[in-house]
Structures are given as structure tokens and as C-alpha cells.
């Protein structure tokens, strides 16, 4: 039973073929820029750049939209919430039903919504085009993370579909036992029962997996080689530079337009 499937982009597309750590660094750069700039203009410029990069990602725009529409929903609600509960500000007021908010706050709310969407989309593109095995290889090769931890975590990642199926079977088993969540309290109790059962299964599987890995020599030598090479190419540096330029350009445009707002202040 397949409920949770990761997106699978074409591995030859430029973004998918890029070095995972460099890709995450590029997304992190954009996130950092958006972190400190809370105005709409910066957000729009970055968002435009990121959406243009969808073309490079090997993901079909329709699939992406189908998976990421919650972002739009959340961006919208964030915009609304910030507007409604903003600190009272002077200036022209807008009447929304029984409430009255300042136009300033409303615009600011829109900006925050767009900022969130931009942050989310840049992160999505980075993660959705990343293969877990390559990510682990890259973390070891580029960031010198201990292979025991990276590969150990990667091995665990293989159990994701197994856990997803197990969660569903646990739900069916509760129905078969005659147990139903009629009210929030019983629903919660059932949820935690399923959680406990899932964790018990998880620890059992993990113990077996660890034994199997040790049986094949994992962790018995102070170092290990890698069958796959993760290199940083010129294209990766271009990507990172591109992200940096996009971020700076966004800020520059916003400053030039006089709309730039710093997070703190």
C-alpha cells in the first residue's frame, strides 16, 4: 500500500545531478536572505527565480503543484494570521468584518506569506531533487561527517516505506479488534497505541539491521571507502553563486524600491 512516496525527478536534470551538499547550501543561502528580509519585494524576486529553476529540476510542474499546494494554503493563512494579530499600527485602517486592521499590517502580512512561500519552495526544490544515498555520500565526502553515522542513518531510511505500510496495518488491526475513535480522547489513545506498536517494531527491526550490518563488517575498521564518488563540479559552484546572486539581487531591488524591511526592526 503506497501512501507516502517521495517525488522522483529525472536524475539527469541539472538540479538532480548537482552535488547534494552544494544544492542544500544554495537553498540555505536563499533561506538566509529571506530569513532577514520580511518584505514582499525580496520574496517575490526570490520566488520568481526559484520557480524558474523548476525547469531545471526534472520535476513536472503539475506533480510539484499537486504535492506543494499545502504551502500555498499555509502561506495564505500565515498572511491572514499575521495581519489579524499584528501589533496595532498607525495609518489608514481596513475593515474586515468586525475587525479593523491597518493597511500597513495587511501589506506586511502579504509580504510574510510570500516570504514563507519562497522559503518553502527553495527548500522543496533542494530536497525533492536529492537522492538519499547521494546525500549521505556527499555529507561524508564534502562535509566529512562520520561514515558510521551517515551510512547508519541511510540504512535506516530504507525502512521508510516499511514503516508507512506498518502504520496502515496497525490502523486496520484496530478496526478488526473493534476499537474505534469516537471522540478526541479515544482517538488520541488509539494514536498513541499505534505509535507504541510502531516504535516496538522499529526497535526490533533496527536491532536486526544493526546485527546484519555488523556481520558485513560495518564499524569494525576505523575507516571505509566509498563505491560511489561525489564530486563538486564547476556546475555546482555556478549553482551556489547563482543562488547568492539571486538573493543579493532581490535585496538590492527591494532596497532600491525603498521597500526593504529587516526582520528585527
Amino acid at each position, binding site marked *: *500500500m503506497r501512501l507516502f512516496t517521495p517525488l522522483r525527478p529525472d536524475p539527469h536534470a541539472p538540479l538532480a545531478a548537482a552535488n547534494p551538499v552544494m544544492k542544500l547550501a544554495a537553498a540555505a543561502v536563499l533561506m538566509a536572505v529571506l530569513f532577514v528580509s520580511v518584505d514582499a519585494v525580496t520574496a517575490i524576486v526570490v520566488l520568481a527565480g526559484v520557480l524558474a529553476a523548476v525547469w531545471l529540476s526534472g520535476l513536472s510542474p503539475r506533480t510539484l503543484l499537486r504535492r506543494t499546494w499545502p504551502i500555498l494554503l499555509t502561506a495564505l493563512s500565515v498572511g491572514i494570521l499575521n495581519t489579524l494579530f499584528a501589533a496595532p499600527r498607525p495609518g489608514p485602517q481596513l475593515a474586515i468584518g468586525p475587525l479593523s486592521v491597518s493597511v500597513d499590517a495587511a501589506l506586511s502580512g502579504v509580504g510574510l506569506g510570500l516570504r514563507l512561500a519562497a522559503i518553502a519552495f527553495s527548500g522543496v526544490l533542494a530536497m525533492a531533487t536529492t537522492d538519499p544515498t547521494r546525500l549521505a555520500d556527499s555529507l561524508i565526502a564534502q562535509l566529512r561527517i562520520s561514515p558510521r553515522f551517515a551510512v547508519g542513518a541511510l540504512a535506516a531510511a530504507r525502512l521508510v516505506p516499511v514503516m508507512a505500510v506498518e502504520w496502515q496495518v496497525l490502523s486496520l488491526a484496530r478496526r478488526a479488534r473493534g476499537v*474505534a475513535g469516537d471522540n478526541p480522547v479515544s482517538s488520541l489513545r488509539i494514536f498513541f497505541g499505534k505509535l507504541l506498536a510502531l516504535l*516496538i517494531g522499529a526497535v526490533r527491526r533496527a536491532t536486526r*539491521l544493526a546485527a546484519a550490518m555488523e556481520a*558485513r563488517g560495518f564499524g569494525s575498521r576505523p*575507516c*571505509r*571507502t566509498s*563505491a560511489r564518488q561525489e564530486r563538486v563540479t564547476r556546475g555546482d559552484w555556478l549553482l551556489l553563486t547563482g543562488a547568492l546572486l539571486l538573493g543579493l539581487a532581490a535585496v538590492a531591488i527591494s532596497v532600491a524600491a525603498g521597500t526593504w524591511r529587516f526582520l528585527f526592526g
Partner: protein
Amino acid sequence: MPSRPGASSRRCDLSHAPPEAAPVAIEARAWSWRHAGRRDWALRDLDLRIEAGERVLLVGPSGSGKSTLLNALAGLLDPHAGEQQGSLTLNGRAPRDARDVSGLVFQDPESQLVMARAGDDVAFGLENRCLPPDAIWARVHAALVAVGFPYAIDHPTEALSGGEQQRLAIAGVIALRPGLLLLDEPTANLDPDGAALVRGVVAGVVEQLGLTLVMVEHRVAEAIELVDRVVALSPDGVLLADGPPAYVFMRHGDVLADAGVWVPDRRLPAPPLRHRPPAETMILADQVEFRYPGSLLPAIGKTDVQVKSAEALAVVGPNGSGKTTLAFLIAGLVRPSNGSVVAGEALARGRGHEPIVDWSPRELAAHIGTVFQDPEHQFLTGRVRHELMLGPLAAGIGKAAAGKRAEELLTRLHLAHLADANPFTLSGGEKRRLSVATALATAPSVLILDEPTFGQDRRTAMELLRLLAALRDEGRAVLFVTHDREFATALADRTLRLPPRQVATA
């Protein structure tokens, strides 16, 4: 010892790549092992000599220490986690120092494969050995050829059947060129086709590479062809018999069979013939079909099933034919994509128009009891007694009556001595009996079981056979999904054979 930041594979001493290991000779002299904190010895006074290139089958009931012995041979027992007496050597060396010469294949393919792609998984062990990348891939290809792996090197491991996954696991182990191949119940989690596949691979590999082989297999009859010698352990971990298969099973067959070993040529005794009440239709599945969302092909194609009282119906078929899905559809747990599953008059008066999947869980449990393949999926509480009382209490029966029913079930299923234990700490056979007991607690008229003998020894299988036959003779309907041909033959009155899964033609 995590690698120091900066210690990269470049500085790894690549001369660690060992030459091909010679077949290993094993010698045990009065060897005993006790796990830390346990009172009883897992294995006691083992005197054993296995020559290089010999092929040995290790048999014994659950708890006889077979896995412990294999782990010891693989050098995986932590000296700090137990107590050892006597000596155990591989080619004269302690197993812990000779880990590179042995390879151990485990029972569960899901928690044995490490990487997402086939080639990467075989390469895993070679990476741990610090081989340079070119040498790694050369050995990966050689190993995949040696086991006859039919797919590409980047085939996702997730998409492999159980048998193919075990084939890949064996490739991963022999890529390390061991002199001793250890197999711990490699086919226990597989269907008959997968099991045959794995046995074929083992035979081929041992033939080609001349390895010493020590195998634990619960389906002894089929494994006999692969070995020349059988070593049998008693329930308390003492050597019972050692010799050619015919000799061992002729002399000790009864003792072993009673202890739960699947001794060859000892069929499960047929249940006694009893008078049964007339059969009536309990559940009617009409042209049911199930298709996963977004999937082109159905998991189970249009099927008609009639589940009758006082009858045991076996649902059989190859891997992927949708047996479990069908069982869940009939049990009212999953909504069919097409068709309907309704209750017969005998099951629920006047509700024949309403699909079972729309019943509330409480109503469902009162009429249909479902037993899952993994008993642990059904456990909801921390105590065996509470498990048995949960269903009746949820159905509205008072505490006193529920307690009484729990007592009856505890006695009937020989679980009385475990009444206050945590269900998750029970042995495999005990968990299976408990899962059946919980399904019976609400006194349903229909019992549906998914692979009831999966991973069970002969003793539990016999108990289940007796119990299910008795339930059937009392008038209940029993439907069971199974790979176990012997069990199906002994119990089933009718068999529904599902066709193999349709494969998409590209």
C-alpha cells in the same frame, strides 16, 4: 571509533583487501555460552568438528540455541554480553578475530538489506573492507553473476520480492569471499517459490565456491538436499545427534518432532472427524476487486467468494496474487474498488444489503474475528489478560463476564501461566496463540486468519490445526490465507486458488 574529521577514505589502508579465504574448518570443544543476565545456558558442552567444505544442517526446536551458535561462529557475540566456557575456533582462530572468513545471512530480508539500489547493497560490505572503488565494482558484478541476480545493478531493492532480496543478501555476503557461509533460517519469511529460489542459489554458490556451509532451516525436508550432515540440538542447547540426515531422523525423529522440529516425512496429523452442523453462508463477496489509487492493475481482480459456517476455506496462490488483500476485503477492513462484501443471513439478520466495510468496528469484531500475520500488530495493552478482556469490554459486556471469558480463553489456548505477562515479551508461538485468542474473545462466528503458521514451529502448527478444526466443527466459519501446503491440506474443506499477479506489459 568514528573516523576523525579529516580521516578520509584516501588515507584508508587499502592493503586490507584479503586474499580469497580458504574453506573453514570449525572445532568446538566443550563449548558453552550463556547470555548475560540469564540463568540458563544457551548452549552447553558442545563437542563438534566440521571439516572444510562440509555442508551441515543445524536443527532443533525454538530456544535450542541455533541462532546463538551461528552468531558465535560469525564472531558476533559480544564477550561482554555473556559468559563463555570451552573453546570454539575457525581454522584455529577465535571467531571474533576471524570475522572476515565467515558470512552470515539472516532471516528477514527487509532488515538485512542496507542500500536503496541492488549494486550499492552488495558493495556495502566491500566498502567496509576498505577496498578501492574499481575492485569493489568488479567483485559486485562477480557476486551478482554467481547468485544469478536477474536485474540491473541500479534496480531498487524495495521493488524486489522476498526471494530476490535474499538472493541479493547472499550476493552481498559472498562478495566478501568468506570461507564459511552461515544461514539463519533464510527462507522462513518467504513463500514457497521464494524459498525454492533461495535454496537454488545456496546450492549453486556452495558448489561454485567450495565453501563450508552451516545452515539453520525450519523446513527441513527441502533443506536436506543441500547438506550431507545434520546436527541436532535438544531444547536445552545440548548436542542431541550428529550424522547423516537419514540416521539422525530415524533415531531421533520422534523426539525432534515432539519438540517442534519439522522432521521430514512426518505429516501433520489430520484432525478427528466430527459431526458438524449444516453449512450456511456467512459472508458473500461478489465480484470484489481492489486497486491501489494510481495503480493500473488491480491488487486483486474480480473474485467471488462464499464463506460458509462449519467450513474451513483455504486461500492459496503465488506471491503477489492478492491473498491478504482478499482476506482484508472479506473481513470488512478494506473497501473494495468494485463489487461488494455483504453478510449472509446466518451472520447478521437483515443486514445483507449493507456492505460489511460500513459496519462499525464494534459490530465487526462481534461477528468477524481477524488474525493478522504479525501477531504484534493486534496487541493493544500491556498485559495478556487485559488483551483478552478488551474486546468483550468494548462490546459492552460487564467486567465480571469479560473476566470469565478471558479465563476460558487462557485455559483453552494454554496461556494461563502468562496471564500477567506483557504480550510483546511472549515467544513466537505464544504470541500466535494470543492473537487467535483475542480474535475469539468477542465470540465471532467467522474467523479470518492471515498466514497463521508463518514462522511457527511444528508444535504451534499442530495446536493451531487442532484449535481451528474444533472451531470449525463447532459451527464457525474459518477462512485462512496460507503458503503452507501441508497445513492447508490438513485443515481445508475447500480451497480458493488465486491466479498469479498480472504483470503490466510495457
